[in-house]
């Protein structure tokens, strides 16, 4: 059985929790559960709702979708991280390929703790906002939120075309005068 300090150190490896404070990690560590993973077992399948984050402590887990292997996750690595904020279907399956131990943190328990510790949620929101900002910089058109900013981008293009046409007409007029 892992001690709470060990679990806290393990949970820190999850992307969403890497900035969580030590005492927040302690709270999450106390809510997390240890699961023995046995080779051949499925932790979840594609249709299962995402309800928990997993951290591999020992052993290996294969993640696959539609029969195609996506990745293999080993000790110190996390999978299902985004289930903490997104309850959609998993979309892939997780199968144990080497016996070992994993730590699971369920979303409900995460939110129970977050309800008491606003700063934990604030930290996660900040992290998500940072990710979103990076995405927006990378792909601004796709990242535009409906109802924000220019609703009719074609109107801007029309205005630019009109301005261009006016400019050209002036230039032509000047040329004729010359």
């Amino acid at each position, binding site marked *: 059985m892992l001690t709470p300090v060990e679990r806290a150190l393990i949970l820190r490896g999850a992307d969403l929790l890497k900035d969580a404070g030590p005492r927040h990690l302690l709270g999450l560590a106390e809510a997390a559960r240890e699961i023995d993973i046995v080779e051949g077992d499925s932790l979840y399948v594609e249709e299962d709702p995402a309800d928990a984050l997993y951290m591999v402590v020992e052993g290996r887990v294969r993640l696959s979708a539609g029969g195609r292997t996506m*990745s293999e996750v080993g000790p110190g690595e996390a*999978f299902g991280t985004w289930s903490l904020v997104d309850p959609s279907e998993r979309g892939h399956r997780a199968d144990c390929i080497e016996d070992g131990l994993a730590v699971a943190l369920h979303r409900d328990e995460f939110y129970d703790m977050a309800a*008491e510790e606003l700063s934990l949620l604030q930290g996660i929101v900040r992290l998500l906002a940072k990710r979103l900002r990076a995405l927006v910089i990378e792909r601004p058109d796709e990242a535009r939120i409906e109802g924000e900013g220019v609703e009719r981008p074609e109107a801007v293009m029309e205005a630019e075309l009109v301005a261009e046409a006016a400019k050209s007409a002036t230039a032509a007029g000047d040329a004729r005068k010359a």
Partner: protein
Amino acid sequence: MTVGSLPGRLFGVITRRIILERHERRLLLLMGALVATLFCAYTIAKVIRDALFLSEFGALALPYGYIGVALAASGFVWLESRAALRFKRVGATRFHQYASIGFSLVAAAVYPLARHWTTAVFYVWAGSQAMMLLPHFWSLALDVWDSRRARVVLPLLGGCGLLGGLLGGAFAGWATPTVTRVGLMWTLSGLLIVAFLLTRVIEGHRASRPRPIEVSSTVSPWKIIGRSPYIKILAAGLALSVIVSTLIDFQFKVYIQRLYPDPHALTQFLGKFYAGLNALALVFQFSVGGWLMYRLGLGRSTTLQPVTAILFLSGLALGAGWWIVVGMRWIQGVVFQTLGKSSAEIYFMAVGSRERRRIKPAVDTLVDRWSDAVVGLLLIVLLRVMGVGVAVVAGLTLAFVVGWIVVLVVLHRAYGRAFEQTLSSRWLEPDVAEESMRVPSARKALREGLHADDESRIVLALKLSERSGDKEIARAVRGCLRHSSPSVRAAAVEAMEAMRLRDEDGVIRGFIVESHEGLRRAAIRYLLARDPRPADLARKWLDGTDAVLRQETVDALFDGPSEARAALTLEWVDARLQSGTREDLLVAARALGTMTGNATVQRLRTLLANPDVEVRRVALGSAEHRPSRELLDVLLSLLLLPEVSYEARRALAALGNPAVPALKPLLDGKHGARAQGLAARTLARLASPRAVGALMAIVKSREASLRDIGFQSLTRVRVNTDKPVLPRSAAHKFFLRELAEYRGFLERAQLIEGEAAPEVRLLAETFRESSESALHRALGALACWYEPKPLSGAFERLKSSDAKVAAPALEYLGHVLPHKVFRHVSRIFEEGPKKKETAVAEGEPLAEAIRLAWRSDDGWLRACAVRASRHAQALDRNLFATGGGDDPLVQGELVSLSTGGKASDRLAAESAPASPRVAC
């Protein structure tokens, strides 16, 4: 109907009209008695003041009195601010009450022995410190009544005040031969003591209301006045009104002193004079005053003041009879007191609200105090230095009146422009709206708004119309009942309810079957308020087959006291409870919130145990509305359930002090950290002195987590009540204790921050987290006395290691804290943490940090220290045998350490940063 029952019936009519709960009626009575007592006392003080001064020094010495009053008033304001800083728990009100009682008692005792000096001091006191009791009363009234009730109740209280003034004047006028002037002084002291006792009773009803969020400005009010032409003209107009009023008063007193050379006759006359003045003001305020403002508009009604001044001066100059002079003086006094004050408030409304709050005290200072002093100086120069006669003063007064008229004309034009700007802004504050409705141009704008095309503009205009009595606006509001938008129709119904308009065409009745919920609810409330037999109507809906109508009827009856509540009976509730359906249980739970009594409590208890969360929530809402000690046990158990914890907290807080002994045991931690936090938050919401006392106990605890909860809760109380919750010295003491802890943890974190091993980094982060918590507690301690908002900002800045970021916070703390407290702050943040005197040997910082962590009371810190010890070669592991291993966290780590190896290997892979290869 007996004479004795007349006041009672009148009181009943008034309170029914404004729809007050039973406990509010008692409160209204108490406050009416208090304001009447204060005005009665103040009128008697004025009579004594004027009579004694005129007898002892003569009217020609009044200018010295004006200057003395101005200086004394400034001195008392300064003294009040110092006392408020030093004894914030006593408060400014208490300071003034103690001072006034003290002064009046001493004056009454000393007067027979030293008339001359007592008269002078009494004059100065009555004109300065004694006057300050009244603004504190209005401030208390605004704390006791919410804004909706205050709009209706405050004018009633104003009337009570005038009645008190009338009684005071009458008593002074007719009882002087019996009690003599010394008797009047003792009466004054007695009235002030009664006022003090009434205030203590009423203060218990003070509620913590959320204050408007204000961004504090660093601009001085004088700069704001200086850069606004409108405010300068307004200040000039107000100053001129005080100057003219004081000059008129001076001439009146010269006149009456000649008529009444006998001091007792003078006292009697002044008593009758002030009684007459207050009686006329009472009649004027509740009848003619509002009508005049409405009919003539702001500009013309304000100009009535200089006109009445000219009439008075003419009466004096023409040697008119005694009755004419007194009559003119009455009219001038009444017009100045009623129309003058109202118009001044309206002119102020054209100033933006933030600026208004900043400059109003400064303008009041300028106008009330220094204008009097200017008159005093002017009269001394004229009468003493230049030796002119009193007749010249009349000419001077006339000159000031003419100047005042000119300023009023300019002011009114500027007001129109300034008000246009205010109205054109998208947001109009309720207090602006209320006053501005008296102005014809504002009513015109409102009528236009009611016929606008924009729906949101119409809704805003309908909200503003609620305070208007104009017939055309009422017609336009009725017209909005047929608007196509349901939101507009709902707002129109609400306006009609507030304006007490009849629905002559019966349109609103049809709205109760509309699909728009807001419209239905507004219609139900209107019909219940306006129906001649509301209980029968409510009963019809409650017994009907329409479940939605039933629910909304109960909601309407829950929200406000009404005669229709008689329709809700226990039999009806029992029938719903018996049916057992979810809808019926919810409606029964809500209905119980309108009833009182043991039987209600038993039924609520049953519903609070219902398995349906929503039923329990609604029942808790009713328990909050109708608090009962008998529900304490069940409320406590619900407090710990996450799904209903919030509602349970509110219901417990509504119980008041009886809940405190039940909540205190939860603070000791035996029920867990969550229960501690919930109990502390409930006590913070309660905010009574007993609740604060319970929270005080935990800020002295050895456990940091408990102190965290304590300071957070006390800060919440501080913010909600806007009053300090700790003495200043205690706040400083706690601040310094937590600051020392902050420094200690920070030094330990800095010892090991550079280490690579994840366990050591965890220990360093835990130290740093502990230091931040200690800093948070330190500023939380300060926030129990000082303004909390800037300290919250200071905390965010001081967390940073960047000196530039922390600088404004240090600047602020340096400004507010006494030097002997701030030097500790300066030592830590400006000079930097000192290197420890005992040198830490090379390679031993980790061992030293672990030793320091092991000595702390924090189980988590000790557990991290044990974990990190795997990397501290220089550490003697026997340290862990020295005690402190009782905590389960620590025990786990000690066992893991003794088994050794396996845990370290497992975690060795995690020394790299979080892997980017995560699947979602």
